[in-house]
């Protein structure tokens, strides 16, 4: 920064920060240094309190009340009605027999999605990390390339792929070049589902690759040298040495990946809108639709679904805490 600009910036900074000086000194004198520290924590705590902790409590209120009113005071207490409505099904495996079929579509779709996406993503992240761990020229560049999509807005991600996948898009151009028929990739249920898995992997695997790569690089080189001295064949080295030592990072990646996958919404919603039909409608979309997009907003149901989702996430987070503590 040029000297003049730097000094001007410094002076503005000093001027702005000097504003609360007098009241802060007064507060410090009144409260003593120890209690004064609370003033520093207060703004952060306030935001957390209002926008994170309070909402959880209100979630419970919504979940146990009914009606379209927004203000909790106006709502009627309905007890477990919301939960019961969500969970009532003739056959749990067939969403069409459920009162809230979209909810159960969401549940099963999300389950399929999570298993497929997390499994494949970890596999590819692991392979990429292993390849990057070798002495490659331009490793920094390659690592950055895999990481780039992580930085993109989900809307951008969705539009990029929507553009590629559309009827007259470049993918179909390649397909016709090869002699096959062009496909409406996002208009077929199974195909659309597969593409949401792919796009989600594309957009996020870089992050997990980084973590796994760091975990691999933390394994000291002499362990491998010792294994070589012990004439250990490569597959054995991988299974008995690399994999166990990488386990902490793998666990982190697994749980973080699961937590994120269970909450999938943004890029899918823009890519397919949940369709065709409900083929790519996932849980969070159900919450969004019920609570904000429907003609009649059903806050109670949305909140009840949120609580169910929260339970799953809580379990996953606790598993992660236990797992990472155990390996330390």
């Amino acid at each position, binding site marked *: 920064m040029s000297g003049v600009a730097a000094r001007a910036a410094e002076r503005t900074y000093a001027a702005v920060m000097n504003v609360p000086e007098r009241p802060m000194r007064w507060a*410090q004198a009144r409260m003593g240094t120890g209690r004064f*520290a609370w003033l520093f924590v207060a*703004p952060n705590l306030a935001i957390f309190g209002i926008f994170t902790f*309070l909402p959880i409590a209100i979630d419970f209120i919504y979940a146990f009340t009914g009606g379209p009113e927004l203000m909790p005071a106006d709502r009627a207490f309905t007890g477990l009605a919301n939960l019961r409505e969500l969970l009532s099904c003739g056959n749990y495996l067939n969403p069409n027999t459920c009162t809230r079929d979209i909810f159960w579509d969401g549940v099963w779709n999300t389950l399929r999605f999570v298993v497929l996406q997390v499994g494949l993503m970890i596999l590819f992240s692991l392979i990429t990390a292993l390849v990057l761990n070798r002495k490659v020229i331009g490793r*920094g560049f390659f690592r950055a390339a895999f990481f780039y999509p992580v930085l993109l807005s989900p809307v951008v991600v969705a539009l990029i792929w929507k*553009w590629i996948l559309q009827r007259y898009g470049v993918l179909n151009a390649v397909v016709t070049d090869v002699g096959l028929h062009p496909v409406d990739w996002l208009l077929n249920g199974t195909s659309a589902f597969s593409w949401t898995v792919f796009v989600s992997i*594309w957009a996020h695997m870089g992050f997990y690759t980084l973590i796994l790569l760091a975990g691999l690089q933390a394994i000291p080189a002499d362990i491998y040298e010792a294994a070589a001295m012990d004439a250990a064949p490569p597959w054995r080295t991988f299974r008995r040495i690399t994999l166990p030592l990488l386990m902490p990072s793998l666990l982190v990646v697994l749980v973080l990946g699961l937590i994120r996958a269970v909450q999938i919404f943004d890029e899918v919603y823009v890519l397919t809108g949940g369709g065709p039909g409900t083929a790519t409608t996932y849980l969070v979309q159900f919450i969004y639709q019920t609570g904000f997009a429907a003609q009649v907003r059903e806050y109670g149901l949305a909140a009840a679904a949120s609580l169910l989702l929260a339970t799953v996430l809580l379990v996953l987070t606790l598993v992660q805490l236990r797992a990472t503590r155990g390996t330390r």
Partner: protein
Amino acid sequence: MTTAAQLLTARRGRFRADWTDWVSYAYLILGVIVMFGPVLWLFASSFKSEAGLNQFPPTLLPWQPAQVQIAGQPAPLPLFHVLTGPHAGEDLAEVRRIGLMAQLLDPKSPNQVIRLRTNTIKPAMQMRAAWDNYTGLFSKFNFLRYLFNSVFITVVATLITLLINSMAAFALSKYRFRGRDGVFLLMIATLMIPPTIILVPNFLIASALGLVNSLWGVILPGVATPTGVFLLRQYMLTLPDDLIEAARMDNASEWRIYWRIVLPLSAPALAVLAIFSVMWRWNEFLWPLIVLTRNEHFTLPLALYSFQGELTTSWNYILSMTIITLLPVTIIFILLQRRITQGIASAGVK
């Protein structure tokens, strides 16, 4: 040894090129193509005019059907290249088409109408970068407004985040007060509460506070990031306590110690948090979707989303808007990717 497992366990390359090295590089290059390719394709496509975009199969470079304005004609006419016959090799403007016959004019002598069969002509292509895809954003849409909204939210939210997160981190790292550890744990606990499960109540609270449909409604709920507090606290713990004691001896108020000593010395950590915050805020989608209901308050991602629902055929503007939306993040990425990837890698190991 040439088993597949060698690929997985090798840590060092060999001096002579192994087949595993070839496979590795092939994989990496494929990866680069798959990761960068789609964005580059979007970029290339954004320079094609509407007509050019309608071409199938699509070309890499912005070719589009050429047009020519002929005196006496009300509008520019599409130019066609003649393939066979007496006019082979010429470029003629098509006035109208009836059945299988086309009526064409020679731009050089436009008085005479030439009739040719449509299967003897094909559109003439010219390469032209359709800059008006970008400039049109400003004239045709409220683009400047969306851009302003996104920039406003990103800058203000980042500034507030830096301020209150560093204040909290300072208190948690340099002071001893009752309940300190409890507060810290509480803040970390919020990491476990993803925003998706508190959407409805947050909407209520935002309504109650009059924040719905306001940019502040997007800014405020997310300024207290637990990651930010954690990061800054870790860094501030490494600052020597003597400095703070010396400043106390120097009659500095605690507030002054904070902004004249601790903040400047925490610059590296603040920079990392600033980068993260800019990225999170610029890319935010779900919460702004809920809070902002009026068009003039939309951020770029929201505007993009609503456009692609309405303008299913005007991809040219959607493409250019998408490119502009991803530009700031891309620039940050190019300049600072090493710092970002290192920051995440080290945090992940912890």
